[in-house]
């Protein structure tokens, strides 16, 4: 098992190292870390700090994806929580008061948890496909953020207490890195030191079988969406407190895609059933390191093209079919290369390419469907 894990993490780590080397070649002072006024500064620290919100969102996303789900609403949830906190601080009479910031943060996080609960209920109780269920909040959530801020761009940055979350320092280390690290450690402990991780994975492998084995699949699914909402809310606070402005239209825009990308790069399969928190962490670092490299060495405008390339390469590496295809490309693969005996009688009649379509994931869909209808 440990061999398998190490194998899974080899590629992401290699990519990360390669990107770090590339960055070093583009910017020779890349690895320098300086201490100013007792605080750490340097390109690497910047990367870690910018990666903190992505790490948070990706942690929640990892667990959601492990249950064979997906949460598209995280960006919108980040916008809701960030907008509410900023609005509360900006509209309060005493911005410097710790109480105001505390209330802003707590209420914003509660809203994020409620949003997660909403997603979780749609997926687990009503049995709606996760993509669709979270699409609702992805659309409506940003609208809600706009309504909260009254379509204004807010400037909560001159509030010292709030600034701490995303841009401040504690014992010399950026506070956001500490928060993301703490949540990471907590998640790792909860999922790997207790049975929770195994339960989540079993729900992802086969919800019906897990239910029969006595696992409360509904409750577990609910919990992971709530956790994802909480992480997104925290990320929203970080994003608004670190930037000088809070625009409901742009807080956490596309962070869901970055988070999914981080999870996928980290080796967690989108078909659910297993997850790697370390992989997710490395995935998030890869994304930020790549961003910084593209911005320094090429042009900020081509970031998206690079991301597209990364997604394609990572997915092809993960896809067993692609690996087989590339491995056997010389021998011209045909449908006969996939050996399921149940379909072989029809194989000669069909176009060679159509046979592999009968694959395990497609059939697994039945089980999900089964469970969804039963629970609804």
């Amino acid at each position: 098992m440990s061999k398998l894990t190490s194998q899974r993490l080899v590629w992401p780590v290699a990519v990360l190292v390669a990107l770090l080397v590339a960055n070093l070649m583009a910017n020779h002072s890349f690895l320098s870390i300086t201490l100013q006024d007792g605080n750490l500064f340097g390109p690497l620290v910047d990367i870690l700090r910018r990666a903190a919100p992505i790490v948070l969102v990706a942690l929640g996303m990892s667990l959601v994806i492990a249950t064979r789900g997906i949460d598209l609403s995280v960006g919108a949830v980040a916008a809701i929580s960030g907008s509410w906190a900023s609005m509360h601080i900006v509209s309060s009479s005493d911005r410097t008061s710790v109480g105001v910031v505390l209330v802003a943060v707590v209420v914003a996080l509660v809203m994020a948890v409620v949003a997660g609960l909403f997603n979780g209920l749609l997926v687990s109780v009503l049995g709606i496909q996760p993509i669709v269920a979270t699409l609702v909040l992805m659309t409506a959530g940003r609208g809600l953020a706009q309504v909260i801020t009254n379509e204004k761009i807010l400037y909560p940055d001159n509030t010292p207490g709030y600034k701490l979350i995303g841009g401040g320092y504690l014992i010399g280390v950026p506070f956001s890195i500490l928060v993301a690290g703490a949540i990471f450690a907590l998640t790792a402990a909860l999922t790997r030191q207790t049975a929770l991780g195994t339960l989540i994975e079993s729900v992802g492998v086969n919800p019906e079988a897990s239910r029969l084995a006595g696992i409360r699949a509904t409750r577990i699914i609910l919990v992971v969406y709530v956790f994802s909402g909480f992480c997104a809310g925290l990320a929203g606070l970080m994003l608004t407190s670190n930037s000088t402005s809070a625009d409901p239209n742009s807080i956490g825009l596309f962070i869901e895609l970055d988070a999914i990308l981080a999870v996928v790069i980290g080796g967690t399969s989108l078909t659910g059933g297993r997850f790697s928190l370390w992989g997710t962490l490395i995935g998030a670092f890869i994304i930020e390191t790549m961003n910084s490299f593209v911005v320094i060495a090429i042009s900020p405008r081509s970031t998206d093209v690079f991301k597209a390339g990364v997604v394609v390469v990572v997915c092809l590496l993960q896809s067993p079919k692609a690996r087989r295809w590339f491995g056997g490309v010389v021998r011209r693969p045909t449908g006969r290369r996939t050996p399921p005996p149940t379909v072989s009688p029809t194989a000669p009649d069909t176009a060679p390419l159509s046979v592999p379509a009968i694959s395990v994931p497609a059939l697994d869909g039945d089980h999900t469907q089964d469970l969804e209808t039963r629970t609804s």
Partner: protein
Amino acid sequence: MSTTADTHPGRRPLSRVLGRLGGYSQVATTVVLLAIMLTVGATLYQNFTSPQALVDLLGKNAFLIPLAVGMTFVILSGGIDLSVGAVMALGSVIAATLLQQGWSAPAVIVAVLLTGTVLGTLVGTVISKFEIQPFIATLAAMFLARGLCLVITDRSITIKDALFRKVNLAHLNLFEAQVTNVRGRTRTVDVYTTPSVLIALGLVLVAFAVLHYTHFGRTVYAVGGSEPSASLMGLAVDRTKVMVYAISGFCAGLSGLLFSFYTASGDPVAGIGYELNAIAAVVIGGTLLSGGAGYVFGSVLGVLTLGTIYAYKEFDGNLNTGWTRILIGGLVLFFIVLQRVIASRRWAR
């Protein structure tokens, strides 16, 4: 695939009939909803349902129709396409850039449609050949298309081409109507539409014919209904999937053209979030998100519904844009829960 595949093993003819009725009842729900929304609009705002305003529901959202049509094909087949908004923007940017470099308008139109189709074909091939989830493959395509837009240009390019301007400004008079203005004066005006609307509606008719009267169209429904069954029936599942994404790419390219007609520009950041609008239109139009059931005309109704929501915002300047998004989200929620109820009743038989 597993997230989008809705398979019905052992579905009986009776339940299939019920399924059909379920599909129609959803379209009927959409019609009723649209009527209610228009009535509400008419009571709140003057001239909300004037003939011109009604025609403009299509006119102002003509570029959304091809997106919704393409998305209908994809969703019917059990997939999803997140790249359409970005491909639309890419289409408009390519059109504007090539026109700027002196290409002739017809050549530009062919180039844009070809770009969309090729991109869609690539995505479809990756999805069917390497079994990569549609969600993630089209996500990559979205990054790619948006990235290419920004590589080509980081600012909006104005289109000065004669043909594009002509299409943009052309008014096709439909009929005359009596309109009462704010001061209570009544006069007769020509109600007009634009060539873009005709192109979009033409596409809808073609899509309808393809879906309901061709072998390919029936295969799309079959693949969406149950991929393993379709495969066991000897249908060309993989080819159909590639075709579906190619069609979606073509439609996104066409929509890019309509968008550049409409705005007389190519904008690299246009259409962010339009994939959601397209998906919303399809869902509101009663197409089952798990694939296999739905109508392309429903998606047009969906676009009209979105258009009505945007019209609220247009008629009421004080309305927070957030409410339009919340309303769209609420409608999508309503329809997916409705689908769920119908689906579970169908399962209970």
